[in-house]
């Protein structure tokens, strides 16, 4: 766009662009900082989007850019798809959406590197540029297919459990080494097209193979990690095209994503390697005792649950992944309203990793207009269970499994849980007796104080609401 400016201004354009980039960087940093607190989060997001707008607009004045047809068409198409997706997506489907957006970002970074490589003669590049092109393609492609598989797992197109070949971890490790080797080969011999395509194909494959074995419950961590990757991929793309803004913002997001991943792992009392290379359903088979026939459960039905809840003083609701899957947050809110009308105290105990991604349950319940002061963090709610009459556990399993406190051999041992077993009565809303994502049996189900309410969470809650109304 620089050709439209008068000549005397032309001279200043490169420096002006760099200064604008610096300002945009500032907006990103302040934006991320403000996302740290609920009071400033929304403005933080707006700061960051302004920084992005500034960066994009000034880039159009770059002297390298000579044609605009593809740019206008691309931005229009992308924006329409992005706006449509962002407006239409259900809050329950947020993790899938983030995975998809993330995948497109990673894919774009890989494409930028490919485009840079394709637009010039391979001789033109020195070895350092070729290494960054190779790395950008590697990381971008892994992010792309990895995110797509994560999307598939979260939305149920791909089975949620562990899908793996024997020795999958070793295969992945070897493939990753080969991929790095190919980056090196490509850097030395860029004219050999086959190496380039092998690298591209292998990177796409690694993305699939590394995410496929990871269980559905660990997907949030994976998405957070892939988010970090997409930042690093953007940074690499910045090395490729020699753009500071890309390098900085990519590194910011990459590092922030790693920290966030770490925070999540801590909440689940796991280490990152443990999530990635899967202890669950894998090696520690000793702890898996699903389907023990000696134990018996008590089954319950809507009318009975209605009576128990309606005549209770205090009811705590422990929502989990299953509530999100069944999209039952509005039905839950209705039940809570009915109970409150009858004078029952209703609170929600939110485990940090409840839902399909950390903090997801808060978003879902906020959408259903649950008052914010009823949502209690784990540390806040745990002392209250001993004075609670009924705990409704809806679609949660591993986060209420007493094995985390009592059996040192269990894969989830040490994970902080909601102490629902201290309440007088627990009622578990569940589709079937299948174990949770961790693949471990839950002794809570067999407790004398526990009853099982089988069925789809939304349907069960609707039946419960109807039963409470009939009590009058």
């Amino acid at each position, binding site marked *: 766009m620089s050709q439209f400016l008068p000549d005397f201004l032309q001279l200043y354009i490169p420096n002006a662009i760099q200064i604008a980039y610096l300002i945009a960087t500032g907006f990103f940093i302040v934006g991320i900082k403000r996302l740290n607190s609920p009071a400033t989060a929304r403005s933080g997001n707006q700061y960051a*989007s302004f920084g992005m707008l500034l960066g994009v607009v000034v880039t159009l004045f770059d002297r390298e850019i000579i044609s605009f047809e593809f740019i206008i068409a691309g931005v229009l198409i992308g924006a329409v798809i992005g706006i449509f997706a962002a407006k239409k997506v259900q809050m329950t489907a947020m993790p899938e959406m983030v995975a998809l*957006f993330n995948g497109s970002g990673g894919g774009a970074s890989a494409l930028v590197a490919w485009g840079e490589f394709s637009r010039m003669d391979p001789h033109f590049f020195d070895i350092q540029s070729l290494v960054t092109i190779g790395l950008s393609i590697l990381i971008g492609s892994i992010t792309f297919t990895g995110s797509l598989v994560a999307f598939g797992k979260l939305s149920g197109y791909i089975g949620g459990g562990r899908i793996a070949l024997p020795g999958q971890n070793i295969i992945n490790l070897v493939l990753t080494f080969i991929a790095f080797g190919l980056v090196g080969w490509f850097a030395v011999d860029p004219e050999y097209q086959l190496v380039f395509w092998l690298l591209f194909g292998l990177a796409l494959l690694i993305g699939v193979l590394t995410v496929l074995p990871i269980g559905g419950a660990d997907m949030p961590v994976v998405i957070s990690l892939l988010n970090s990757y997409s930042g690093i991929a953007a940074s690499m793309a910045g090395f490729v095209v020699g753009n500071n803004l890309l390098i900085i913002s990519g590194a910011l997001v990459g590092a922030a994503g790693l920290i966030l991943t770490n925070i999540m792992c801590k909440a689940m009392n796991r280490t990152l390697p443990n999530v990635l290379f899967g202890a669950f359903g894998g090696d520690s088979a000793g702890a898996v005792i699903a389907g023990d026939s000696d134990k018996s459960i008590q089954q319950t039905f809507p009318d009975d649950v209605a009576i128990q809840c309606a005549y209770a003083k205090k009811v705590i609701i422990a929502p989990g992944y299953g509530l999100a899957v069944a999209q039952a947050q509005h039905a839950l809110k209705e039940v809570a309203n009915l109970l409150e009308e009858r004078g029952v105290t209703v609170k929600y105990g939110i485990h940090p990793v409840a839902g399909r991604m950390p903090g997801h349950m808060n978003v879902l319940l906020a959408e259903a207009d649950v008052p914010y002061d009823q949502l209690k963090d784990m540390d806040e709610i745990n002392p209250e269970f001993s004075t609670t009459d009924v705990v409704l556990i809806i679609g949660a399993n591993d986060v209420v499994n007493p094995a985390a406190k009592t059996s040192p051999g269990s894969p989830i041992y040490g994970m902080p849980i909601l102490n629902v077993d201290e309440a007088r009565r627990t009622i578990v809303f569940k589709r079937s007796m299948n174990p949770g994502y961790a693949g471990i049996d839950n002794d809570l189900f067999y407790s004398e104080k526990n009853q099982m309410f089988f069925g789809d969470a939304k349907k069960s809650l609707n039946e419960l609401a109807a039963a409470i109304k009939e009590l009058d």
Partner: protein
Amino acid sequence: MPSCKISILTTHDAHLIIMEDLIFNLFIFVLAAFIGFELISKVPPTLHTPLMSGANAISGITLIGALIIAGGSESVYSQWIGFTAIVFATINVVGGFMVTDRMLEMFKKKKEDEK
């Protein structure tokens, strides 16, 4: 063979300059990563989802690289690659920021209700 010597010198110099660029960029990368580490400290779990989706939108910054490829290439082949990259990156940026705003709006609404 004086000319030969000169040419060797210049390629050598060129390599040095490029290395300098790379090292300068690495400095930026590492320092920015440290800032990133420092920025995320005690985020309440409530905000994990919006934070992740907001940070994700920022990683769509690769759009700028895509603009340069699509608008600055002479071969149509590269332009098409750049075009595809723009579409992907714009989805990431526009969708990411909007959906984050949608989530954060719900939190904000709650606050006003309390007052």
